[in-house]
Structure formats: structure tokens, C-alpha cells
């Protein structure tokens, strides 16, 4: 049921409005002498907190491995379709357990003119490979410069230690499991171990 809230009945004094206006004027006048809170931007910098949602960037783990596996879920979730990924095979001879990851982005573009800094990409990433960083100064002389490519994204993202490193050491376990590694057999390089 609708609840009817009675209006406060104004007294004749309140109805005059002038006292209210006067007190308002007093308030604003006093405010003039309060200290300024403006940040003088290029000289002074704001404090950026850890969960600040600045430009998204790609990260590497402590071994320098690129964590993104180009699953393209961020591309899928990104509301303004800012992300475009060219998926591909991980480069042969990479130092980590290649056969378990196999996939890595060949190219990774984020159009920062489209990005709305929603953070969905960070949230959906199953590999914790993309993060919203503290980077908030995005200036460029052309639109093309604001389409961040893989190189730029790794610059922005930098290193981020991964406590789990779920892919690490999986190949060793494979041999411990008693399977013949067919790749080795194919290469004719079966060594007794």
C-alpha cells in the first residue's frame, strides 16, 4: 500500500524563503574560504590504488612466460568490442611446458578508443593474464597509436608473480606417469631415463 507522507507545513517565516536564501548565501560564502582540494594535475599526481581500473595490459609471470593463451574470452565479453585477438600456436621452443599450453596470442589488440574500462576482461580471464593497470595517461597523436598491440600491452602489464603456475612442470609429470611420449618416439629420440 502506498504510504502517504504528509508534507511539512511551512510556517509563515519559512514561507518567506528569504531567511532560507540568506542562510544559503551564508553557507556558500563561508565555503569560499575553505581550503582547495584541486590536484594540480601534471605537477601533482593522484594516488593510484591497486584496484584502479586503468588501461588493461597483459602480464607475464615470474618466469617471463606470457600468461595469455588466447582463449578469446575477453574478446567475447568485452562490451564495446575493443579487443581483437589473433590466436596462434605458442612458439616452438618456448621455455615453458609447451605441449600443455600450445596456444598463445599471435597478436592482441585493444582499441583504447573503444575500451570503457569496465574490467570485464580481467574478470573473465581464466589465466589471469589480463589486468586493469594504473595506467591512466593515454595520449596519442593518432587513432592508430591508441590501438594497443601485444607489445604495448605487455609493456603496460609488466610482470605479475603467479603463485600457482598451473602449467609448470607438467611435462615432467607426464614421464612419471609411465606414458611413452609419442613426440619423442616420433623423433626417434627415446632416451632411457
Amino acid at each position, binding site marked *: 500500500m502506498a504510504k502517504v507522507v504528509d508534507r511539512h507545513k511551512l510556517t509563515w517565516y519559512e514561507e518567506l524563503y528569504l531567511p532560507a*536564501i540568506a542562510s544559503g*548565501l551564508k553557507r*556558500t*560564502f563561508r*565555503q*569560499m574560504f575553505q581550503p*582547495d*582540494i*584541486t590536484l594540480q594535475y601534471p605537477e601533482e599526481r593522484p594516488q593510484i590504488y591497486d584496484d584502479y581500473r586503468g588501461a588493461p595490459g597483459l602480464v607475464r609471470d615470474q618466469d617471463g612466460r606470457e600468461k595469455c593463451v588466447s582463449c578469446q574470452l575477453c574478446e567475447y565479453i568485452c562490451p564495446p568490442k575493443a579487443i581483437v585477438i589473433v590466436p596462434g600456436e605458442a612458439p616452438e621452443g618456448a621455455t615453458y611446458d609447451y605441449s600443455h599450453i600450445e596456444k598463445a596470442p599471435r597478436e592482441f589488440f585493444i582499441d583504447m578508443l573503444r575500451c570503457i574500462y569496465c574490467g570485464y576482461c580481467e574478470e573473465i580471464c581464466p589465466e589471469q593474464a589480463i589486468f586493469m593497470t594504473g595506467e591512466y595517461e593515454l595520449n596519442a597523436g593518432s587513432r592508430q597509436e591508441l590501438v594497443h598491440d601485444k607489445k604495448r600491452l605487455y609493456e603496460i602489464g609488466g610482470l605479475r608473480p603467479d603463485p600457482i603456475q598451473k602449467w609448470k612442470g607438467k611435462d615432467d609429470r607426464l614421464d612419471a606417469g609411465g606414458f611413452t611420449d609419442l613426440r619423442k618416439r616420433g623423433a626417434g629420440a627415446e632416451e632411457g631415463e
Partner: protein
Amino acid sequence: MSDNLLFIIGTNLAKIILFTHLVLIFAAYMPWVERKVSAWMQDRVGPNRVGYAGLLQPIADALKFIFKEDAIPGHVEKVLFVLAPAMTVIPALLILAVIPFAPPVKVLGESVQMVIADLDTGILFVFAISSLSVYGITFAGWASNNKYSLLGGVRSSAQMISYEVCLGLSVVGIFMAAQTLRLTDIVTLQVDGVWNIFTQPIGALVFIVAAFAETNRLPFDLPEAETELVAGYHTEYGSMKFAMFFAGEYAAMFVFSALVAVLFLGGWDVPFMSNATFAALGNWGVVIGMLSFLTKVCAFLFFYVWVRWTIPRFRFDQLMHLGWKVLLPLALVNVVITGLWNLP
């Protein structure tokens, strides 16, 4: 009074140039003041990059306006669209003609009034001309051929016509008491006597409120309400045309501040000085009087900004209610009271 034509032309030209430039400089620096004061009231800094304390900001703004492309949208009514900005600036500057800035000055032994045209119908001239400024805004709104602009224009004409009535009636009391319409005389009377704000408080209140409405300032800036009308009548304007609306608005503010000073705050009067003292001080008296007058104008201009950040915008029906049902009766009552008071 001299009969020397050259002298008359010379002094008048000098006055015109002096006063017009005075107003234009005020109009140029008023945005800076407004931004500064607004900033202080909001715990900000305001312009502080261009020159010391941002003092060169108006010049930067002017340069920007001048160098911007003067685009005229394809869908507008060209003639009126171009005419409209001028039609808002010119009335504001015309009113200037009858405003006394200072006590009479002695030039080459002649006494010259510090007013461009010392009309004996001074205040009527003011009302006549100020009514014209509504055309500029209405034309701008209509010529822009844009819903928002049109609404802004329509609102503005309704608002200005309504408040002109109050504006006119509110000063009737003064003339009844002073028995003259000449603005110099009204000032002279106040210099020796009491400021009208004390003898005519109701009239002053109504006049000040109406002045806010006439200049489209908050809380009565409905014609250009950014939040609802995306800047109303000047949505389609850019570069110097927009700057002219801007200048027009600030010139109008200056003029109305000057009117308030002249009509209610004793014009060039300084407390405890009489016409005789001013005369005795000679041309120094003129300088003091002028400074006093400008101080009052500045104070009122500050008040404009101050009110802007204190009172929120009215709704249109509230605006009309206030104008017709509150201010108008008040002004009438004021006339009646003054009449009774001054019964011979």
C-alpha cells in the same frame, strides 16, 4: 552648458568610448571572475594557468573564439541566425547611454555630466531598450531550427515579458518619491539624502529578483538550462557568434548591476559625502565617485555569481508563479505604500 558643438561632440565621444570600453572590459573579465568565484565556492582553484592567477584567461578565450571556424549549420534560418547575437549585445550597450557613472566633471571650466545621454525620461528609455533584448534570444531560438533552441527562446520571451512588468512597477515608488525620471537627479537626491534601498526595500527586492530574471541568470536561467535544453537558444552557435551571446549576457549583467547601484545604492555616493563635498573635491570627487560606483557594480556582480551557486534553478511554473502572483502584487503594494507615505 557650452554651446560649442565641437566641445559637445568631443566630450560625448570621449564618454562613449570610455564607458563602452569599461563595460566591455568588465564583460571580458566577468567570466574569469565568475569562474574564480565559482571555483572558490566549490573548493577548487579555478583558472590559474594562463598568466598570473589565470588573469590572461579572457584573452586566451577571446583568441580561441576568434580563431574557431565560424560554422553556420545547414538547417538554420540564415539571416536571423546571424542577426540574433548582435541583437542581444546592442540593447545591453544602448542602456549604457543613460547610466551616470560619476558626479559631473569639470572640463575646460565647463561642467559635464558623466553620462552619455542625460535623458529626462532615463528610466523609461532603459525599459524600452531592455525589452528589445528578448528579440535576440527569441530569434536565435527560432532561427536555430532546433527543438531545444526553440524551447529556450520561447521560455525566454515568456520570462522576460513577465518580469519586465515587475521590473517596471518596482521602480515606480522611487520616481513617485523623487518626482523625476532622470537618473542623474535620482542619484543626486540619494547623495544628499538616504539610499533608496532603505526607503524602498520592497521595491529593491522586487527589482533585484527581476534583474536576475531579465539577465537569464540562475536561479532563472531557464532559457539556457544546460541540463534540460543543452544550452537552449545558443545550442547551434559557435565561435564569435557564441562569444557575442556571452558578451551580451555579461554586458547585461553589468548594466543591471549599474542600474541597481544607481537606483538603490546611491550611484556614485560615498557614505557621509554630500553633493557639496563632491563638488568641493573637484575632479578628484569625480574619481572617488566613479570608484565608488564601480565598487557597487562589482559587489552586485559578485552577488550574481554568489546567488548562482546558492539557489538552484526554478521550475518554469514556479518562475511564473513567482513573477505574477508574488512579485507583481508586491510591487503594486509598494506603489500604494509609497503613494500614502508621500501624501503631501
